């Protein structure tokens, strides 16, 4: 990817972020429920109508929509996403505190996913239509149909309730508490990714150069490791980048089940308590993280595939 292309992608990211911010702002604006009322009620006392009216005025909730939007956008550009109504803290501080746990969980489950699905997908493709291929295809098919919240609950039932490993892996804030959530996330993702690895390798194996190499008597193992695998890296990396999206979205459910202190569980409680500032901040942050990761993925093509370095 050329520098020019990278710059245009960054511009695109900015445009998308502005679009998303407008959309979420519009939604919260149209949503039933008065934010001033919610802010006051969250402190625990029933506010009087005049208190609500006064707060509406000071917070600028009576201004026209676009005035409110641009004021919010201006603050957001300075890194100020406002104060969370329900938790009474700046949105940025709350998000920052939860960012690392969620990233850690995402990275850990991606590693799990890669360790499982790359070898399985490769074996399945190389031994196409053998019993092992059929088994892998069958299991991955069931895997993509599993609801991740159910998997999470079943793992919890098995390891925390039946096997009584409660103090070991089911509570606490250290590495061990990440195991079950990460496994839960990895189950569905691995199933999907194994199928994609299999398809990508099969696609590459059907290329003419493979037939040519075989005809010349090149060893099968050598063809696989020297040519086929490196060539199928490109689609695999692209799909990896895309799966980060479903991981980031999927963490919410898993974090709630395991009471894991990440962005997802924060977002769920923000939505439940109509904490609009926090919801907007969360949606924008996730969008930003996802798009930056995919940009990095595209830039990484330069290293994987020399052809990409030429201006394309």
């Amino acid at each position, binding site marked *: 990817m050329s520098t020019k292309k990278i710059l245009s992608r960054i511009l695109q990211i900015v445009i*998308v972020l502005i679009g998303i911010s407008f959309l979420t702002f519009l939604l919260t604006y149209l*949503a039933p429920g008065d934010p001033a009322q919610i802010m006051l009620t969250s402190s625990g006392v029933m506010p009087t109508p005049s208190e609500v009216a006064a707060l509406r005025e000071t917070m600028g909730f009576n201004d026209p929509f676009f005035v409110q939007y641009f004021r919010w956008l201006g603050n957001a550009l300075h890194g100020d996403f406002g104060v969370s109504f329900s938790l009474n803290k700046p949105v940025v501080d709350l998000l920052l505190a939860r960012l690392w746990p969620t990233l850690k969980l995402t990275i850990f489950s991606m590693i799990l996913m890669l360790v499982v699905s790359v070898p399985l997908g490769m074996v399945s493709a190389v031994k196409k239509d053998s019993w092992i291929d059929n088994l892998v295809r069958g299991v991955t098919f069931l895997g993509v149909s599993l609801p991740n919240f159910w998997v999470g609950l079943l793992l919890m039932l098995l390891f925390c309730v039946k096997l009584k490993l409660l103090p070991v892996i089911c509570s606490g804030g250290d590495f061990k508490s990440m195991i079950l959530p990460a496994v839960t996330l990895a189950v569905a993702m691995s199933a999907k990714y194994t199928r994609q690895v299999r398809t990508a390798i099969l696609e590459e194996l059907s290329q003419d150069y493979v037939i040519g190499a075989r005809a010349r008597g090149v060893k099968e193992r050598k063809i696989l490791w020297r040519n086929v695998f490196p060539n199928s890296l490109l689609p695999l990396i692209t799909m990896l980048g895309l799966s980060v999206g479903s991981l980031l979205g999927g963490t919410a459910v898993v974090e709630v089940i395991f009471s894991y202190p990440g962005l997802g569980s924060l*977002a769920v409680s923000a939505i439940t308590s109509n904490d609009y500032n926090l919801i907007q901040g969360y949606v924008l942050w996730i969008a930003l993280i996802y798009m930056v990761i995919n940009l990095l993925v595209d830039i990484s093509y330069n290293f994987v595939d020399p052809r990409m370095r030429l201006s394309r």
Partner: protein
Amino acid sequence: MEMKKKSFFARYKVFTIFAILAILIILAAVFAPQITRGVDPAKGSLADAIKAPSAEHIFGTDKMGRDIFTRVIYGARVSLLAAFGVVGLSFVIGTFLGIISGYFRGIVDSVIMRIADMMVSFPGLVLAMAVAGILGASIGNAIIAVSVVTWPKYARLARSLVLKIRDRDYVAAAVVTGSKTPYILFRYMLPNALPTLVITAATDIGSLMLELAGLSFLGFGATPPTPEWGLMLSEGRAYMQSAPWLMIFPGLAIFITVVVFNMLGDGLRDILDPRSNE
């Protein structure tokens, strides 16, 4: 040649089996009152609360003494209606906007496609959660929320299919001979795009069911006392230790239904579009 014919027939058999299973699930949803012999899924007696599976309540009862079997059967109604609702909504909106976009090009195309690009450029579930949460929890709002993030896929697909044929000679001939634009859209553009869109819709149903159940599980979809599988799972969570059947059966119901509809979608794709065979 012989080999190929046989494998196609085998695939067709798989499709038939799963089509029958899907019809059985749909029939169970339609005839829920008959199957459960008139038991009310929303009512139970507290004397029967948290009973383990037995001859009387084959899937056990929940904290309100409601029969889980009855609720699981009625849950098929909610799950199927919601998933078909999302597919229907996104299909109609996406196809309409996509065809318009591809046929007219220009500013209309730019606006629609930039919105679609925006929607697909970040995780859909995150936005669906926010939309469903802000609109307020209800199954209808969950359908709207998931449709909001699903239509762009259909719009982009429909557009690309229309772009392929809009400059063909027979379309130009129709324009020159005075065919009205709506006629061209319906007579030429839509039929051309339809098969691929239908395949996509069929393969999507399973994962949409999962998303909808996930929203209900988080509390952004169906509300009590609706018998919805995701919601039942989240209600059963608290009783994991004492009453695991509360989360086994609704989970199995989701799993089996999604497997059946995924297989059906894949089978349909293999039959309608043999090129896509892996």
